[in-house]
């Protein structure tokens, strides 16, 4: 959270305590936060223990990591109900902690100012295109020069959510010839509005109420692979972003399809963290397969730390303010009463000793998603 967002919370009458050096990665000093009105605390456990509301970026990796969070505390952050260890949430439930996850925020217009996923996707999408331009050993733009014509790079973007659109826009700006595909048909217009071509593959799926894609059936998936073969072979650079919340990312590009690509091509897989859109993706690493570099992008947002943390911080501050106005309150014995609000309701992972979020409940019961746990 950048100092100005902290300042806003302070000016709204909240006491803000910060772990020392929390802003370093994004280029902010403790002094700047102090100037904004925050109290700097050297000791993390003191922060954990002494706050009514803990605003974090990511949740803990292990159940025990953040011991000492008192009953009635609210934890707000990107808590990853679909992939973080279930034990963490069970531990919180047992400890009377309430967990609100920013990634469960409904994707409705009025919630957009708190929509962390949009912000991060924006960063990631831009970044993916820049990284693709940097990794691809070719010009992106068309150049007609005295030494002949360099054709433009062909960029294929699979999945045109927020990140995909941003990647399309960025690659188009750089002069690449961009094609894109998504299973949600309404995306066609959005893709075209950015000057790119939308592929007509006749593989469609409906969107959920939040605009997320639903999973394709077996047959549809096979068809998609089949029909993507040609565009994939055509492309110099591919950026994949296809994700379905709570599911392993669909495999859009098989090994065989990669073999069909020109050597020296690049794939930036933004779905690496949820399993990857290619068969060879490894999250956090670039692997070479058949002469094609497949970048399993992880945490691309951290590559623009200042901008990303500004966006995240503002979203978070907006959400805290929203919570406040919606009527978050503690009674005398520090029992929390959550406001009954559409948006907040959807974000509750853990409250009053219970796991609430349906995805989380399913995972505890079925354990199907364990592929993704890390």
């Amino acid at each position, binding site marked *: 959270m950048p100092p100005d967002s902290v300042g806003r919370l302070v000016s709204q009458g909240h006491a803000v305590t910060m772990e020392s050096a929390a802003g370093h990665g994004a280029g902010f000093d403790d002094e700047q936060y102090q100037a904004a009105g925050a109290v700097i605390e050297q000791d993390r456990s003191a922060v954990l223990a002494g706050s009514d509301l803990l605003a974090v970026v990511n949740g803990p990796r292990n159940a025990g990591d953040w011991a000492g969070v008192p009953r009635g505390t609210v934890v707000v952050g990107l808590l990853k109900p679909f992939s973080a260890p279930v034990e963490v949430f069970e531990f919180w439930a047992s400890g009377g902690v309430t967990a609100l996850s920013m990634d469960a925020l409904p994707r409705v*217009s*009025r919630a*957009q*100012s708190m929509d962390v996923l949009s912000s991060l996707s*924006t960063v990631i999408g831009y970044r993916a295109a820049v990284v693709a331009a940097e990794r691809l050993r070719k010009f992106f733009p068309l150049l007609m020069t005295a030494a002949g014509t360099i054709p433009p790079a062909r960029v294929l973007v699979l999945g045109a959510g927020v990140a995909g*659109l*941003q990647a399309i826009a960025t690659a188009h*700006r750089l002069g690449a010839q961009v094609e894109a595909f998504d299973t949600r048909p309404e995306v066609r217009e*959005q893709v075209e509005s950015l*000057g790119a071509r939308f592929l007509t593959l006749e593989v469609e799926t409906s969107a959920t109420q939040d605009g997320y894609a639903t999973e394709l059936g077996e047959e549809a998936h096979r068809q998609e692979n089949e029909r993507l073969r040609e565009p994939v072979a055509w492309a110099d650079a591919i950026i994949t972003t296809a994700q379905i919340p709570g599911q392993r990312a669909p495999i859009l590009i098989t090994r065989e399809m990669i073999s069909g690509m020109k050597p020296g091509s690049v794939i930036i897989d933004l779905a690496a963290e949820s399993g990857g859109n290619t068969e060879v993706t490894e999250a956090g690493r670039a692997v070479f397969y058949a002469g094609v570099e497949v970048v399993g992008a992880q945490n691309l947002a951290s590559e623009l730390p200042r901008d990303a943390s500004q966006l995240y911080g503002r979203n978070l501050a907006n959400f805290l303010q929203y919570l406040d106005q919606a009527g978050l309150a503690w009674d005398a014995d520090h029992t929390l009463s959550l406001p009954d609000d559409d948006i907040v309701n959807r974000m509750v992972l853990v409250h009053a000793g219970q796991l609430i979020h349906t995805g989380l409940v399913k995972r505890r019961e079925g354990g199907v998603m364990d592929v993704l746990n890390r």
Partner: protein
Amino acid sequence: MNPIAQVLYMASATLFVLGVRFLGSPASARSGNRLLAIGMLLALGTTLAFAPHYDHVVWVALVALLGSAIGVVSARRVRMTAMPQMVAFFNGLGGGAAALVAAGGWPGSSGAASWLALLTMVLGSVSFGGSIIAFLKLQEWIRVDLRMALGLRLLGLTVLAAVVAGAVYLATSGHGGIGAALGVMAAAAAGGALLTLPIGGADMPVVISLLNALTGLSAAATGFVLQNQLLIIAGTLVGASGTILTQQMSRAMHRSLMNVIWSGKAAQGEAGTAEGTVQPITHDDTAMLLRYAKKVVVVPGYGLAVARAQLEVKQVIDLLNGFGVEVLFGIHPVAGRMPGHMNVLLAEADVAYDQLWEMDRINPRFRDTDVVLVVGANDVTNPAARTQTGSPLFGMPILNVDEARHVVVLKRSMGRGFAGVDNPLYVDPKTRMLFGDAKHSLGALVRELESAQ
């Protein structure tokens, strides 16, 4: 008639023609009006100087002075918004005057003169009756139950048929005094009134223009009666140009003239003045509104991106800047379908970054903005977000475009935006809708603005 008078009349006729011509373009309109006034003075002076008699000169002078005074005072007093009914009123008097002049000369005339005089009486009186009703309706001094529309129209037509029959009888029978004349006139006025009664308020301007042309024709007919070429020319000029103008006006409403004066749409027109109705606007009106504004804010939205009309929007602002209009873009943080969508788009068109103002910065400025041009934006301008607690947009900060003086919305239809809710902005009385693909509409604006240079 005296040849000198004739030549002077000819000069004033020429001034009339040129004056109307000048009135057709914004830059010269005022000189046009002045030419007309000079032509009129010339005509009156000539008439006074060369009149064959000067009987009753004192009375005439007094009455003319009285009339002028009434004209000046009422024209000065009237509120700007009441201009159309004022014009209707004056027009009615003009028609009445033509009828009276004809009636005054009619008794004793015969042959063509008699026919022409009767024609004038009928035309002038219809114009009189219709105009007075138009005036009263626009002043909201009378209201008509629309279920009576058809009845009124049929009655009006019947009355007019009777008038025509009577007039033909009088002309062919060759006798009839001032009383018969007054009778014909009263009946014709009633017919005009009946036909005008059911026409809706929104359509009135077109009808007034039509009646105006009619008055012109009646003046021309008077000219035939009096063998006065100036009257013929001036009246015909008004008749002909008024007809063209009427056509243009109904075309600007995307209606046919017949539809305006007759069809059931009139009823809708009536409703059209009430709150809650969408008011369309034409390209040229939008262009004029923009061109004569001081401050304009353009609010782009997803529709701009869909239309890929960024080059056109850039041209519109360049042209407006050329006219000295201050133009800014108000960028809503979630306009479009991805963060920064508008930025990408406008950068393509090379719009300078400092013309892009974010929501928080532009919102206080709407209050003194003359025109907001909303280009394919919907949700981000929806005032329901401020007021309708149940709306899915409730609580989302929006661009307060409704605080500006005028709002023009460019979109293809009444279609909804991303959030899928209706936008009360579109029925705000100060909002006008410019329907059509944004690329096309902006292109048309460019054309209009360029022709206004």
